[in-house]
């Protein structure tokens, strides 16, 4: 199954009731999958909206009344969705947003890129907020993380972003779905369903009193602290004896892994850390690895964004190098292998 369709199927099995989308390459297979499979389910809705702006605000509406809702797009469309994401975060509403990232800035290229890392992990829209960001690197993970995204969104009342790329979305790999689609999910508590036998409820963000908004921020950030404590995930690969650790996420991590396997074959002690949550970032793990390994190489399909999180995490306790290809150009494993090998000998790690 292709990655985009796998997200769609996993979303349906996670009880997603509403999907609102707007065509943009390279994620159209997901919109089309939902058109074919979600719209016909009882109590479910598919709408091809008039814009990404409309789509995210439809998600907002569906979330307000307590439904599991999602939207997807690629970089330029995600920029338009930032308005809605900020409002979702402010109103503490769950939602799932998929970004099949492409090369930017501007219209850019439709090829795979990781240029939206900053936008994804720093909130993205206006205001002080964060969204949980999941970074899958296989079709199986696209499916698994989609399910997890819905659960996290409900658990923490927050929008959750899945950051993929054009290649992951179009790639085909075997995938196994671990859940059956529920008949109908119960309506989330706190939703607006009409003030029957209870005081009326208001969902709002504006206040004439800055102290109210300050309190909202405090409460959001208390929750973010909890998320940082509970929800960090990552994968490590051959780090135990590593003298050099490559840090990469998503499709870049697959390429890096290919390179590392070859590096190992020629005796270089190289390992990998692959964050699967980009926010919260596995900073603690980076520091832990730095106790044994001093050299880190960050490999991204951009000009260097995640590298800042690695540097922040290291607090100067390790040396960080960077290799990246922006704009939708994707390195092959041997290119990364050359970078690894050169760095390895430059730093005298063979000794």
């Amino acid at each position, binding site marked *: 199954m292709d990655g985009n369709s796998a997200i769609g199927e996993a979303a349906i099995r996670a009880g997603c009731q*509403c999907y609102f989308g707007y065509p943009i390459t390279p994620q159209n297979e997901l919109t089309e999958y939902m058109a074919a499979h979600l719209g016909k389910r009882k109590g479910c809705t598919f709408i091809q909206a*008039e814009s990404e*702006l*409309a789509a995210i*605000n439809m998600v*907002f*509406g*569906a979330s307000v009344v307590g439904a599991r809702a999602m939207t997807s797009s690629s970089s330029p469309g995600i920029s338009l969705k930032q308005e809605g994401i900020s409002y979702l975060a402010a*109103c503490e509403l769950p939602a799932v947003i998929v970004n099949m990232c492409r090369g930017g800035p501007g219209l850019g290229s439709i090829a795979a890129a990781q240029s939206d890392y900053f936008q994804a992990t720093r909130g993205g829209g206006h205001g002080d907020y964060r969204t949980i960001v999941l970074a899958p690197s296989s079709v199986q993970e696209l499916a698994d993380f989609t399910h997890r995204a819905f659960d996290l969104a409900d658990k923490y009342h927050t929008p959750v972003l899945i950051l993929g790329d054009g290649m992951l979305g179009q790639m085909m790999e075997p995938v196994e779905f671990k859940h059956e689609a529920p008949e109908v999910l119960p309506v989330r508590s706190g939703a607006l369903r009409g003030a029957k036998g209870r005081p009326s409820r208001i*969902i709002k963000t504006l206040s004439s009193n800055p102290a109210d908004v300050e309190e909202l921020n405090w409460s959001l950030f208390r929750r973010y602290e909890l998320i940082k404590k509970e929800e960090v995930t990552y994968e490590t690969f051959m780090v135990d004896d590593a003298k050099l650790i490559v840090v990469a996420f998503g499709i870049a991590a697959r390429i890096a892994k290919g390179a590392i396997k070859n590096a190992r074959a020629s005796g270089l002690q190289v390992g990998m850390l692959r964050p699967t949550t980009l926010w919260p970032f596995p900073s603690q793990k980076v520091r832990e690895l730095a106790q044994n390994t001093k050299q880190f190489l960050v490999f991204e399909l951009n000009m260097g964004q995640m590298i800042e999180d690695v540097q922040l995490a290291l607090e100067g306790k390790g040396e960080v190098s960077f290799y990246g290809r922006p704009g939708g150009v994707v390195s092959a494993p041997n290119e990364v292998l050359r970078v690894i090998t050169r760095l390895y000998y430059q730093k005298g790690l063979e000794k």
Partner: protein
Amino acid sequence: MKTVYTHPKYLKKVPFHYCPGCGHSVIHRLIAELIDEMNIHDRVLGIPPCGCSVFAYNYLDIDMTEAAHGRGAAVATGMKRAFPEAIVFSYQGDGDLAAIGTAETIHAANRGENITVISVNNAVYGMTGGQMAPTTLLDQWTTTTPYGRDAKTAGHPVKMCELVAVLDGSVYVERTAVDSPANIRKAKKAIQKGFQVQMDNLGFSLVEVLSPCPVNWKMTPVESWEWIEKEMEKVFPLGIIKDTTGKKDAD
């Protein structure tokens, strides 16, 4: 003894923050009365806009959610689709509806979303201090048309009712005003019809209400009522613009 006046059940007992003579408070009252009279309090959901009426939720005692500026119709779409038993209305200013939210409004109407849009046309951006709105009349003074609105550089007043009426998805479109007791009664009837159309699952309804903004128009409340009648209604004619519901009245 017959009760001729009482505080509407679903209007909270707090003073309005609106300027004296503002139309928003009148329209809020009409909605509160209708929610009671039509017995829909248990399932009505309202969406106030970005605009002077953003605080509508402080007055109407019903479930309400704020929407981003202009996105009322999109939010309403999501709510209604995910919860079809609800009666969903968005309450939007003319700038909200006809400038930043034009696309959302037109397309919700075109899809025939079963929602009711109540649009308050005061020919200016009230909340931000009286700038030009898409509905500002030609030659009208606003803070951003200090020499009067010039069609050559600032375009013409946008008539949303007429625009929405040509779409096959809309079924009921009426323009009303709150510039006289008789018109206020008509406005109430129009909103009632809009809700009824939705309850009967007939499709998209839009009720525009011409409403005074004395402060930004630099007029007294009485002058602003007169201005609506003499100037605004020439450009924005009152009455039913479209009704394909096949029924004469909502009652």
